[in-house]
């Protein structure tokens, strides 16, 4: 009787030891599963649970218990990154949150969590990148610049690895475009700059191009945009300084005829590499004729003379032929005539994001900056680019931020909310967080 009881106890002990789970890895795996499902808050909760069970991130493989003869490592030698994971998934959740207050609160927490990992000496390129994005989202330019300075100081000494499986594929692709990788083991080699080469100027990307068109002069006085040509120069500077566009990759047309615009656009389209990113900005007179949008040249004498205009879709096609992603912004008055207005035409093919400076039947307006008028829309574009200070600006996030800026969200000094409301980007065949 006594021996059988002893045996039962021993069996119970053995059974318990064979059923006990390795809780931190389970929580971490649950987090990764939630990442794959896009459940960011659930993923964040799982990573936080993993932190509560095993607190510190580890860049090197986690050796698992097992035979001494085998180098048995957890998750195929991956880094253990629950702190990074919690912050990153929080960032993703914040971006997806449409409630401003909740979003800001969460983004602040995320920024603090990323900073905490940097304080511990766990500086990875991924951490710098997403922290920069978080600060941009928070419009905290001072911290953005401070981060850029720290990143520049760290240089190529960033050796910390994070678990690449945490990062969404589109973000991983963005990081890889800087020359580093965010693979499973997140080995960083030949890292480029994800957040800027140095304070003041964002690192340029060779595959990004811009075509800026500003026609102040026009024969159609009622639709004139008086600050169109100067807005182009204003925006050009912002793109170079804050968004990673090389000066040589930007073609500018001021006060050009339709033919001149076409020639310049075609020349640019001919030299861009396949799959490039195109920032397309037009400020001037536009029209919609028979459902098709046209950009007027300075020689256009009639709002119905399509022969002296350039079809918007024709402009798009030049770059679509190269498989480019087109990010188009139009600062055009949009009167409704015969039920039609500029911007009615929505592209069906190509990868295009199209944003209008004002609603249909509304006019564009300006604000005075440094003694000169600047279009409200252009001013907001430039201002938000300055906030992002990134060569990988997500389009929809950028659209919302520009929208808020124009509504007076930026220091309340533009006061545009009462006189001009822009549209959000209309996106065709690209993701909402596609970057330009």
């Amino acid at each position, binding site marked *: 009787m006594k021996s059988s009881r002893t045996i039962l106890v021993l069996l119970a002990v053995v059974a318990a030891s*064979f059923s006990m789970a390795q809780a931190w890895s389970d929580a971490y795996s649950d987090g990764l599963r939630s990442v794959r499902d896009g459940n960011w808050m659930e993923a964040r909760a799982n990573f936080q649970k993993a932190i509560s069970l095993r607190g510190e991130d580890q860049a090197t493989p986690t050796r698992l218990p097992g035979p*001494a003869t085998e180098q048995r490592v957890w998750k195929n030698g991956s880094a253990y990154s629950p702190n990074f994971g919690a912050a990153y998934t929080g960032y993703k959740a914040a971006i997806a949150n449409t409630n401003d207050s909740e979003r800001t609160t969460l983004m602040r927490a995320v920024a603090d969590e990323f900073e905490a990992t940097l304080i511990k000496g766990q500086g990875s390129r991924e951490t710098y990148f997403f922290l920069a994005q978080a600060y941009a989202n928070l419009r905290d330019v001072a911290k953005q610049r401070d981060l850029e300075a720290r990143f520049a100081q760290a240089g190529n000494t960033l050796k910390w690895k994070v678990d690449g499986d945490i990062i969404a594929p589109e973000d991983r692709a963005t990081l890889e475009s800087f020359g580093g990788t965010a693979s499973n083991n997140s080995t960083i080699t030949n890292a480029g700059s994800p957040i800027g080469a140095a304070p003041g100027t964002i690192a340029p990307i060779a595959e990004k191009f811009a075509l800026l068109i500003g026609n102040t002069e026009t024969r159609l006085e009622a639709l004139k945009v008086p600050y169109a040509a100067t807005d182009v120069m204003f925006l050009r500077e912002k793109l170079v300084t804050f968004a990673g566009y090389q000066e040589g990759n930007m073609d500018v047309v001021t006060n050009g005829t339709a033919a001149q615009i076409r020639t310049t656009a075609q020349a640019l389209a001919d030299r861009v590499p396949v799959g490039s990113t195109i920032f397309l900005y037009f400020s001037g007179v536009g029209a919609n004729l028979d459902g098709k949008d046209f950009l007027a040249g300075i020689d256009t004498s009639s709002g119905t003379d399509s022969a002296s205009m350039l079809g918007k879709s024709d402009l798009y096609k030049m770059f679509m032929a190269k498989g480019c992603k087109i990010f188009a912004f139009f600062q055009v008055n949009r009167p409704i005539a015969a039920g039609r207005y500029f911007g009615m035409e929505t592209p069906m093919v190509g990868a295009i994001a199209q944003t209008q400076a004002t609603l249909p039947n509304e006019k564009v307006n300006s604000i005075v900056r440094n003694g000169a008028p600047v279009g409200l829309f252009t001013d907001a574009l430039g201002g938000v680019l300055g906030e992002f200070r990134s060569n990988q600006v997500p389009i929809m996030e950028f659209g919302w931020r520009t929208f808020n800026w124009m509504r007076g969200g930026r220091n309340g000094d533009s006061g545009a909310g009462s006189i001009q409301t822009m549209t959000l980007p209309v996106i065709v065949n690209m993701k909402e967080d596609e970057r330009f």
Partner: protein
Amino acid sequence: MENQTFRSARRTLALASVAVMSMTAHAQIPDLLAAFDAGGRSLGLGSSIGATSSNPNSAINNPAGLGYANRPTFSITFRNLTESRSVWSRSFVNPDVTTDSVSGNRSLSQVGFTRPLGNNSSIGLNYSIGGFIKDQITGTNLVDGETILRNYQEEIRAKSDLFTLAWGKASADYRQSFGVGLVLATHNTRNLQQYQLFDNNGTPTDLNDDTFLSNESLNNSGQRIGFGAVAGLQFNPSADTTFGVSVRTPIQLSGGTEVSDYYGRIPGKASAGLAKRLNKGLKSSDFIIVGAQADFFFGGDEDDILSRDSSQLAFGFGAEYNYRFRDAYIPLRIGFRNVGKGGAGFQSTSALTFGLGYNPDAGSFGFDLDFGSNSRGGTDMSLSLSYRFKN
């Protein structure tokens, strides 16, 4: 040069089968009939980590190792099959014998696959060579009573193939593991013999007056099959220490009536091993693994032509330095193995072993190249490749 006592006598020309039964006992074959190492990393470490490892070969070496497999893994090993060459002289009944090992031909010696089943358990399917001998004997003017044998040539080849289906499970904290397996054994035997028989006319030392009697030849071959079981335990009292024990039952062979007298039972094998990881090295990321293992073979059949003693002992020890190079480990290993004599007609053998490998972190593959320098001559060489699939 060594003398060997016959277990059976050959006296008449007609009793060829009796001759077959005796001839295999004449040689001094390095005894790998049951203690053949299928190669791979283990070979380079003097066969010292079989009982303490976790790889597809664990299915037969110690199925407890399967409990630690966390990714589907495939491995394949090629190695030479050590042979021996014997030269007889003077007498057929009690010849003077000289035997040397040679490397032999290369062959597939192991292929295996493990698949995790969840809950810290895995299943493994493995093929490996469990035993192999091939002795080629030559001799001439071998006196056998009133006859004399000239141009004597014989080849005896025996090979045990082990097919194992095993399952292992580790505890949640990976401190212990157990495993069991079923072993299908096939044993192939081939015995070729030919010579010219002369009547020595009462003058065995005078080779000029012999009378030719006949040409004699023999060709026996066949396959025998049997089933056995294997079970094992592994303990990891600390993260850097592992004990392993495993037992394989003797395997009774059946079938192959033409060769049934050669080998009736594959001996059982009991292994006990100890492995230790030393976190020391030139760099902090380097480490060393040392291992030692003893194998005890039991339950063989003494009455077989390929006779087995009641027991046979083999032991090995080795060390592996894992050098960190970029994002990979390069293991450099050295070891020593001794296999004791396990039956009449056999002799003990030992080998100094060494090898290296390459195991990248990110890659799913690894390879090992290992060598053994045998005390009886010949060099072993093994190439092992492994691939770990994603879960």
